[in-house]
């Protein structure tokens, strides 16, 4: 039977790692939060358990809630792995916590609201329209002001943001995923993230959030940017083939039926499952 995420986190070594990272006091509530997140999302429930646990652990160490509705951080299923994604509110939260920011904000920009742009300083003058909701969004701007007086803004047009999404996300390129479902949130996050990456004083947390964003966390401080990789037909085909053989092994009612797949056991996982089932029949 497939192991649940709670069973996975109850394994001594896994639990020990969680305790080591979060402390004993926070471990049980962390496990409860991860279980609750996975139970409401079938795709996450079927994800690789380690990637799900590490994605949630990253959010928790950054002290960001993993409740998707709050928009600070998201845990998203991509193929069979759980991917960590920062929300723009999460970046704002981390910046505020650093104690170095007077202001940090992001907003959409409607048509006609840009009055002038100084290419040298990067300063943009806006004249905000009054009845702006009816107007078409042409871009997004992030702004920050540090306590030492340093100010900076970063503006990107909708077209530039779409290009950014298509460049860094395979799902965006194919017209689905967060870029399609919630463009406003992804665009806001992108301008905030780039503003912080280029101009803000880097704290340990902001740096970690920048690195972990849109990554599957393979191990502590090891990130794999899966959504940036192409969807390979061969990999999908192989996955389906392995799943078919696993089903055949599990459903086999006789040794003869089981042995029909013997010459097609192309992975150690399949070989193990086959041997296990064969043992069952011989007992």
């Amino acid at each position, binding site marked *: 039977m497939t192991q649940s995420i709670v069973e996975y986190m109850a394994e001594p070594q896994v639990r020990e790692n969680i305790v080591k990272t979060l402390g004993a006091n926070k471990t049980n509530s962390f496990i409860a939060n991860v279980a609750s997140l996975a139970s409401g999302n079938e795709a996450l429930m079927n994800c690789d358990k380690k990637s799900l646990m590490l994605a949630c652990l990253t959010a928790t160490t950054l002290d960001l809630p993993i409740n998707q509705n709050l928009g600070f951080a998201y845990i998203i299923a991509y193929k069979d792995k759980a991917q960590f994604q920062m929300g723009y509110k999460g970046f704002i939260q981390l910046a505020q916590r650093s104690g170095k920011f007077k202001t940090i904000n992001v907003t959409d920009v409607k048509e006609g609201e840009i009055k002038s742009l100084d290419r040298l300083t990067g300063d943009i003058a806006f004249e905000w329209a009054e009845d702006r909701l009816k107007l078409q969004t042409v871009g997004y701007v992030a702004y920050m002001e540090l306590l030492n007086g340093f100010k900076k803004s970063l503006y990107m047009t909708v077209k530039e943001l779409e290009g950014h999404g298509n460049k860094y996300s395979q799902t965006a390129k194919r*017209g689905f995923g967060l870029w399609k479902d919630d463009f406003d949130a992804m665009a806001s996050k992108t301008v905030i993230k780039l503003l912080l990456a280029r101009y803000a004083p880097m704290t340990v947390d902001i740096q970690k959030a920048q690195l972990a964003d849109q990554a599957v966390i393979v191990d502590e401080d090891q990130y794999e940017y899966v959504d940036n990789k192409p*969807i390979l*037909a061969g990999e999908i085909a192989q996955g389906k*083939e392995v799943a*078919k053989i696993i089903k055949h092994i599990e459903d086999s009612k006789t040794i003869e039926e089981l042995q029909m797949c013997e010459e097609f056991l192309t992975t150690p996982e399949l070989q193990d499952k086959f041997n296990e089932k064969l043992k069952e029949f011989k007992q």
Partner: protein
Amino acid sequence: MNTINWSTYKFHPSSVKNLMIEPRLKSETISETTKAYLLEVYIEEVYGRRKIESVANKFMRKGTMCETDSIELLERVKGETFFKNNNQLTNAWFVGTPDVIAIDKVIDIKTSWDLWTFAGVDEDQAKKDYYYQVLAYMDLTKTQKAELVYCLVSTPPEMINDEMYRPSFYMDEVESEKYRNNYKFDDIDEKSRVKIYTFDYSEEDIERVESKIVLAREYLASIKI
């Protein structure tokens, strides 16, 4: 640049039909179409370059991604169990990986792109188009029978998203959903989503293929670019 011993060069079964086209003039031994194909083989083998359109198109992508789905559909329709073969086979003439090797036959699976292409599959044409391919597979597997099986299975969501990306610029969600249905076929009776054509091995025809391969090898050895 690779050095190839063309005298023993082995052809993939899917390429054999390119060698079987008769030249227009009796004075010629190889047709112009075959020569053009052999030039592609030469460039691929010697210089390691292959035309992208010959591998990266949506029809082939669906064929690869859905091969197991098609095999499972065939299993349900025939009430038999099949597994995809991953072993590459070779003999003196051919090298290839048949889709399914059953006890008494070899099966070649074609996954149709959509309902229109599936409906348009004509038995005579399909048997003509793929005869030499399945003949070569029968020769490789030493079987006397082959089946060419066309299957209509749903397209993977990733591919449907690709197809619907541009249309989604000028369609609302409701209309878009309606067209997404063009790529899903689970509502159609499974038996009517499979077409099976059978073939018998022919010693005589395989000898004709072998003589064409000898000519093709000679031509490949003579190419200079």
